[in-house]
């Protein structure tokens, strides 16, 4: 991956970029421990060419297993997601602010961690088929945070 070439968010390529960095940093993830969950990222309010159920909505599924993530795919709707999953939902503007903050600081500041953004259910929301699925977001939170922190490693452009 060329580290100076901006990758469009949201896109499969952008998430694959993070997955690729996860592979390069396997030792870090080994230290944190294995991760076993499926995350769906929902982006709302983006450009209207979205393939999601509502205009402008996009869904991306990342399957974490052991010390990496082997599957990334864009979903046409949330119904296509694996049965077991949680959803991180936010507007493109919120995702952009979080990613830019990570890029600017090398990691998120105190007000841009995943937990900080999701805890009040606004501006980011975590949902799932049931509470135990939502709880997996808490169970692997540090690993998921590190996953997104890798966004500091390459420039991102936005739709």
């Amino acid at each position, binding site marked *: 991956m060329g580290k100076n070439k901006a990758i469009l968010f949201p896109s499969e390529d952008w998430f694959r970029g993070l997955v690729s960095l996860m592979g390069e940093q396997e030792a870090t993830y080994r230290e*944190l*421990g*294995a991760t*076993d969950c499926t995350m769906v990222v929902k982006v709302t309010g983006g450009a209207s060419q979205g393939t999601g159920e509502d205009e402008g909505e996009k869904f991306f599924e990342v399957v974490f*297993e*052991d*010390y990496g993530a082997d599957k990334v795919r864009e979903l046409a709707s949330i119904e296509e997601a694996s049965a077991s999953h949680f959803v991180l939902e936010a507007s493109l503007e919120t995702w952009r602010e979080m990613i830019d903050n990570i890029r600017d600081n090398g990691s998120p500041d*105190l007000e841009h*961690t995943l*937990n*900080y953004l999701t*805890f*009040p*259910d606004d501006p980011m929301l975590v949902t799932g088929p*049931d*509470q*135990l699925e*939502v*709880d*997996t977001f*808490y*169970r*692997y*939170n*540090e690993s998921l*945070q590190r996953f997104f922190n890798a966004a500091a490693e390459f420039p991102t452009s936005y739709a």
Partner: protein
Amino acid sequence: MYNAVVNEGLDRMSEMARGNFDLDWMDSNPAGWGHEVKPGKTGLTLCDVETGHYDQVPEHGSSHGSLAPRGCMVPDDTPSLDMYTLNEMSEVWSDNARHLYDEACNRQWNSTTDVPWHKLEKLPDDIEKSVCQMCTGFVEVEFVAGDMPAKWMCHINHDFHEVKLFLATQIMDEARHMDVFRKRALANGGGLLMASPASEELLAAILQANDYTTASSLMHIFGEGFILTLFRTGEFLAPTEVEKTIFRLCMQDEARHVAYGVKHLKYFLERHPEREGEIHSILDAGEQAIFRLTLEPQTIEPRAILAGGGIENIELGMARIGFLYSKQIREYLHRLKVAGLERESRMVIPAELSVETLLERAGVA
């Protein structure tokens, strides 16, 4: 000169010295011999090895009552420990216990080197006091989740070793939590502040519960579920990266404990629906205790100060975290729903607690 036991041992050794060995043990367990396993990417897990012959968990734990491992040949003269009172699988089992044990082993951390203590910074007095009060509360409540499993573990039939192993990891997790919050309280020029009488009421209810499943429902789902949300609050309000890291790491452990509790209650209620009333009764007691705890000044005020950014904005802080209570209740009810328990109509405390409602109740327009 020696007693009968020692003489018997000496006789056996004499036979061995003459080349007469028993070797019966070598062919004692043909059904369990030749077992094959394949390590996964994370190494050789309990899930990897507990297959075939070794995956047969009995509904009723073995009557020999010893520590003999499940799946081995147990000689007839093996003495019973006479300690096991939890001999039914349904009393302790959870379908995710094995997996959670593996995960707990794999995701261990330590408070000595995994927290960036060097990033601690001098904080304004009201903020440091609020952080230290929160930590005092966590130091007080965390180890109940170590004491409770410790109380029951030696009564769990050894055939359910997955549950015992998982509970052992939980005890270690709670030791780490108690340790890390104590360290944080003492590490930055502050110290421990005020204990919580209301916490003790809840902790006593957990420790004095009549049976394991009611204790587990109260602790794993109710207590740890509420604490999980408080850990999330802690991360949200953290004034430095140090507290952020502590709360994120603790949150992960707590979510594992909750996952065990939910799946255990589900397993139990599917087999003993007639016991639902007992679970509701202990939750009645727990809800009242946590309600008192939630509104205790030493619990709520430090969070309000942190949420407001200082004591001068404590009221603003109260408004900012007004959603906390209803979030705790919502997640608690949803977890019980996964376990098969409809609790919403049975709750003995309010589902929401907004500042507006409280002002209205106080007659303030």
